[in-house]
Every structure is written in C-alpha cells, then in structure tokens.
C-alpha cells in the first residue's frame, strides 16, 4: 500500500523561500531567453520532446478533415478540380512571361555588373497549427531543420506574403505572421511607389503603416507589395491592401490601417522561400561576424567601427 508520511524533523527551506527561488529562476529564464536568446538549443530539444504529443493532439482535426473529404460529393471535387485547372492555365501565360523577363533582367544585370539574382530555394509546407497563446500571431508549419528551412525565410501563400520563419525546430518551424505586433516589413504602394514600413496590429489580424507623413499620397484601396529594400523579402510580393486612412491635424503621421492578402485561415499549404545571400557589403573582412549568427541575421551587417563603444 502506498503510504506517504512526511519526514519528521527534516525541514528544508520555507515555502516562501522556495517561491522566491523559483520566481527568480523563472525571471532569469525570461531575461536569458528574451534578451540574449541563449535558450534556443534547450527550446529545440524541448520541441523534439513535444513533437509526438503535438502530432497526437492534431489527430482529431486530421480525422475530421479526412471524414469531411470522404463524404464530400465527387461532383464538388470535380468542380474544384476544373476551377484549379482553369486557374493553372490562366497563370501559365504569366509564368512564361516572367521566365523571359527574369532571363532578360539577369542578362542586363550582368551587362551593368550588378549581382546576379540567386535562384531561391522553395519548400512547400503544411500549416499544422496556430500558436497556443493569444499574445503572438504565429503558425506552426510541418517542415523544419530536416527539410532545410532556414530562420528568417519569407513564407507566402497563393495570395501573398504570410510571414517569416522565426524559429526552426528539427521537425517543424514557427512562422510569425505579418500581423504580429513585433513584425516589421518594408512595403511599397503599387500605385505611386511610396515606400513605408508596416507593423502588425496583433490579434485583430490587420497591420498599419505608422510612419507615413500626413501629406503623403495614400488612399484607401491602394495595394501594397514588398519593396525589397531589406534584402530579405523579394520585391513585389503582395502584402495587403489599405483599408482606411485617417489624417489628424494634431499628428505628423497619418493613421493607415491595412488588411493582409495572404490570410492563413483559408490555407493549408504555404511556400517557404529561401534566405537570399548576403549583400557584397556584408562580406567585408572588418565586419563583426558574431552578431549575425545569433537569432535571425540582419540583412546588412554593421561594421565594428560604426558601433557604439
């Protein structure tokens, strides 16, 4: 019989002392993980342990999907198939033109001595879940380190940019959506080429352009694409559409709210692009090589002599 009696006369630290100890340990963990990113290896190891449980927890929804597909009528599937076939034909023409244009662009770049655009690696990944906390806007995709996913890689859907890979585990990766509060993205308005930085709004599933001067030519309905000036996102990826523009005389900046085009709720599969190679400036010998290898690499390295002492 299982009998547990307290050990008499063996008094450890008081409960309050234990509480202070564990709270201090937790705060130390938060600081080390948030500020210094020194617990990434531990987190990766934990993700391997959690992976089978995550797969088991996803089974009910996978089963529901399978049952739904099984009872879906063949006519509906045929209609969807026809629709996709038509879409493919429509895009075939554009794809051929793009191929020709890319080839011409590379030739012209070679003529003027510019860097050749590297072919970007692509990997199709399945969205297997959303982040389980309401504080961040993230999704988990089924490809990880074993599939060659790199941290910082842009992720797109059929409609447009979805987000960026921010954590790569062995079997899966986390993608921070462009609507996340801490996600910044260089964008450009298609109509007039005006560049801006977009910031996510968090839970509402929208993003905003907070630093656009009040007198700028911005209208509701303008389409936004990536500007490509950060060297990470390829230029021209569809990002979203401006929903509303408010100009308040008391502020120097307009309040611009936008909706993303690549909403993840409607998609099961996404495309992970490759991380482009560093610009030539990043390979100079006098650069601080240590900074870029921690967490997500910045697009351009900062020379040591320009850094604050």
């Amino acid at each position, binding site marked *: 019989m299982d009998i547990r009696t307290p050990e008499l006369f063996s008094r450890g630290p008081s409960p309050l002392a234990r509480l202070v100890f564990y709270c201090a340990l937790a705060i130390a963990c938060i600081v080390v993980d948030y500020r210094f990113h020194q617990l990434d290896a531990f987190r990766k190891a934990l993700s391997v342990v959690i992976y089978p449980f995550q797969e088991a927890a996803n089974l009910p929804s996978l089963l529901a999907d399978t049952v739904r597909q099984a009872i879906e009528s063949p006519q509906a599937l045929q209609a969807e198939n026809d629709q996709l076939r038509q879409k493919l034909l429509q895009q075939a023409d554009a794809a051929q033109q793009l191929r020709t244009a890319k080839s011409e662009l590379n030739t012209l770049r070679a003529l003027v001595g510019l860097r050749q655009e590297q072919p970007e690696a692509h990997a199709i990944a399945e969205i297997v879940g959303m982040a*389980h906390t309401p504080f961040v806007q*993230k999704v*988990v995709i089924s490809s990880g380190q074993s599939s060659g996913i790199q941290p910082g890689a842009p992720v797109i859907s059929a409609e447009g940019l979805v987000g960026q890979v921010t954590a790569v585990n062995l079997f899966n990766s986390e993608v921070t959506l462009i609507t996340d509060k801490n996600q910044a993205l260089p964008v450009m308005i298609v109509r007039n080429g005006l560049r801006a930085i977009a910031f996510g709004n968090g*839970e509402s599933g929208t993003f905003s352009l907070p630093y656009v001067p009040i007198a700028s030519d911005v209208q509701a309905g303008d389409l936004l694409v990536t500007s490509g000036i950060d060297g990470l996102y390829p230029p021209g990826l569809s990002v979203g559409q401006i929903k509303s523009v408010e100009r308040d005389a008391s502020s120097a900046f307009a309040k611009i709210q936008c909706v993303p085009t690549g909403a993840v709720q409607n998609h099961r599969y996404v495309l992970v692009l490759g991380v482009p190679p560093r610009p030539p400036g990043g390979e100079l010998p006098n650069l601080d090589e240590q900074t870029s290898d921690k967490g997500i690499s910045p697009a351009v390295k900062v020379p040591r002599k320009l850094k604050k002492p």
Partner: protein
Amino acid sequence: MALPPREPQVLKRPATLRRVAGSFLVAFLFMLLPWSGPWLLLRPDLMVLLLIYWTIREPMLMGGWIAFCLGILADAADSSTLGIHALGYSLSYFLANHFRPRTLSFYTANQALHVLPFIFASQLTTTLTSLILKLPLPGWLWWLQSPFTALFWLVLPALLERQSTHPDSPRVP
C-alpha cells in the same frame, strides 16, 4: 438535542503517481489541441488547475520544481518566452500550498471559488509579463479564462477520485 446523522464518509486512498502523471498528460494534450480565435482565449488552463488540485489533495507528491517544470513545458508548447508560465505556475503552487487546509474545509463548489484566485494569479502573472515584453493585450474574452478554468474544478473529483474509492475501504460512521 441529537445531532442530525452525517453522511458516511469514505476514506479515500491516496492517488497513485501514475494517475497524477496521466492527468497531467491529458491536460497537456488538451492544451496542444488546435485552438484558434475566441476559443484560444477561453481555453481552460487545465495544467494549472491540476497543479492546484494535486497540491491540495496530494501535497506529498507535488513540489515547487514540478510547477516550474510544467510551466517551462507549457512555455515551449505555447511558443512563448521560456519562463512566463513557469513564473505563474510557481505562484499558483505557492498559493495552493499555503491555503491548502482552508480550501479543504469547503465543499467542492465552494472550493472552486477558493481556487479561482490561485488560477487568476497565474493568468495575471502571464499577462503582466507579456505586457512587460511589449506583447499586445488579448481581447476581453481572455479575462474569462480563469472563471472558465475554475468551473472544471466541479468535475475534477468525479473524474479523478472515482476509482480511488475502494469498496473495502473502512467507512467512518
């Protein structure tokens, strides 16, 4: 004046380690289900509820380090900064351990009201830490999570104690 006859009390067997671990496993799988939208905000935190439950029922089996480790596991599963849940769970464990005799003196429904502040302490700590880390505050539904979790306290004895009662256990008249 004669006292009214009391209900015969059943002497409960202590819960086995397997039962405690199994309940935490179920709570962990429950947490990993694909919650989204308003359901993610309302999702009951069964991990903290079970932590409080077993701290009150089986204090010899629980410890601060278990609360801390469960918190770290919840952080890793939640893709949040490591330590956020660990902080909240440690606080909840301390409160449950401190007010254990008082909580045990109530019936199950009253106990649910008593553990609500313990659950809310964990949620408030998580929220405040996230705010300090400049994360946005979720919608108002988020604040219903603790009461929603406390409601599950009402069904926990039925789920976890039913088989602990042995038919041959001595009965206190």
